[in-house]
């Protein structure tokens, strides 16, 4: 199908974006990479009167280290993350996750900020942001706010962004030498939406893993952190001896939502499969 008619503006400054958002309200949509938005327009699932193309705004671009954080601008594409030496060094979880995102032709245009703002619970970036306890930087006409990942993803496609605000960047803690990261997902076909995915972050200690973080995609209405299970290992590192205890806790904690083809029980089982695989791999690091 073809998209319905709409107006198109390509402002050169954030202030101009805020003006357009203020005057058009709900009738306007921001266009960055467009890899989700244009599909929904073509299918007429969304019929905005105005597209505001934000790709000319330099302040939203670039990957940089700023003090103790890695800053990823909203307009950074998935392919740029894939090729980034800074990301590979400071946020290797993202380098592991990025090949799973759709296909090359989509990664060449789709953006980091678009994925975060769209907040698809089956998407890779919100899950990674949750695992890393990253921060979303948002800005509106009234100024800038920093929102922790756990406070940003509120519900299905629903975030803490207020009307008239946009995501300008995210900040991720810099990976330390002892940090271990693993990402994997289970999908019928490479690039399809995953049935379930897992981002694991931990700190390697002799014989085990400290500060274990487990974030799942595809299980609920937002990325899901297994906080109750993580807490079991807050003060004592996880070792292979505790695999049984971890799995018991995790499978009790996870309450997956079924999708069109996979039952909640299937998703819970597959989440367990992924967890075992990634823990074994992380322990071997």
């Amino acid at each position, binding site marked *: *199908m*073809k*998209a*319905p*008619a*709409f*107006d*198109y503006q390509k402002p050169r400054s954030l202030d101009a974006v805020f003006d357009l958002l203020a005057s058009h309200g709900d009738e306007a949509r921001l*266009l960055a990479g*467009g*890899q989700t938005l*244009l*599909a929904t*327009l*073509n*299918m007429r699932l969304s019929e905005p*009167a105005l*597209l505001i*193309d934000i*790709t000319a705004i330099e302040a939203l671009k670039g990957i940089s280290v700023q003090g103790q954080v890695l800053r990823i601008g909203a307009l950074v594409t998935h*392919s740029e993350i894939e090729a980034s030496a800074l990301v590979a060094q400071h946020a290797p979880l993202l380098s592991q996750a990025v*090949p799973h995102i*759709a*296909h*090359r*032709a*989509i990664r*060449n*245009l789709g953006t980091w900020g678009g994925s975060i703002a769209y907040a698809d619970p089956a998407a890779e970036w919100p899950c990674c942001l949750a695992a890393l306890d990253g921060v979303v930087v948002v800005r509106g006409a009234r100024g800038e706010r920093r929102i922790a990942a756990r406070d940003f993803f509120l519900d299905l496609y629903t975030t803490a962004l207020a009307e008239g605000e946009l995501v300008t960047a995210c900040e991720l803690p810099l990976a330390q030498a002892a940090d271990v990261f693993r990402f994997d997902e289970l999908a019928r*076909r*490479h*690039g399809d939406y995953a049935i379930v995915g897992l981002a694991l972050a931990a700190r390697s200690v002799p014989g085990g893993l400290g500060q274990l973080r487990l974030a799942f995609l595809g299980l609920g209405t937002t990325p899901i952190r297994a906080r109750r299970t993580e807490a079991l290992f807050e003060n004592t590192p996880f070792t292979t001896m505790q695999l049984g205890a971890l799995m018991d806790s995790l499978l009790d904690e996870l309450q997956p939502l079924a999708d069109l083809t996979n039952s909640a029980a299937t998703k819970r089982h597959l989440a367990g499969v992924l967890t075992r695989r990634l823990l074994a791999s992380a322990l071997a690091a």
Partner: protein
Amino acid sequence: MDDKRIIHLSVNGESRHCAVAPRQHLVDFLREDLGLTGSHLGCEHGVCGACTVRLDGQVVRGCLVLAVQADGRAVETVEGLTESGTVRDLQDAFVARNALQCGYCTSGMLMAAAELLDTQPNASREQVRAWISGNYCRCTGYQAIVDAICDVQASRRAAGVSA
């Protein structure tokens, strides 16, 4: 609302000035306005890959880019690649391996495969399969397409062409 915008862009190396409606996506523009019908239109929501073209040197879904977004940029289609001869070996390999039957997916496959050969000349067969998973073929079962791409990898390596 449907007022046309003037865009300036390069298509297969040729400078173009055109008026487009904001709602028109890039492949409709290429096919309907410029007559470049080598890029095909399948699903029109970014799944099938038949509309794959290059924008500023990288493959994109032509149905997920608006023509107005191509303002100031360079677009290449299978016609341009064919004319320049840069994918001649790939096209020959597709013929030699019977990597097409109806041909609907072929231009998109060639665009996708060309970027793989350029960026990952040593990709494994498994990586080739993963790479083209974004391009649907309903005829061949993919084996012949993967064979053709792997043949070109090998021949370019042997010729010392690839990096």
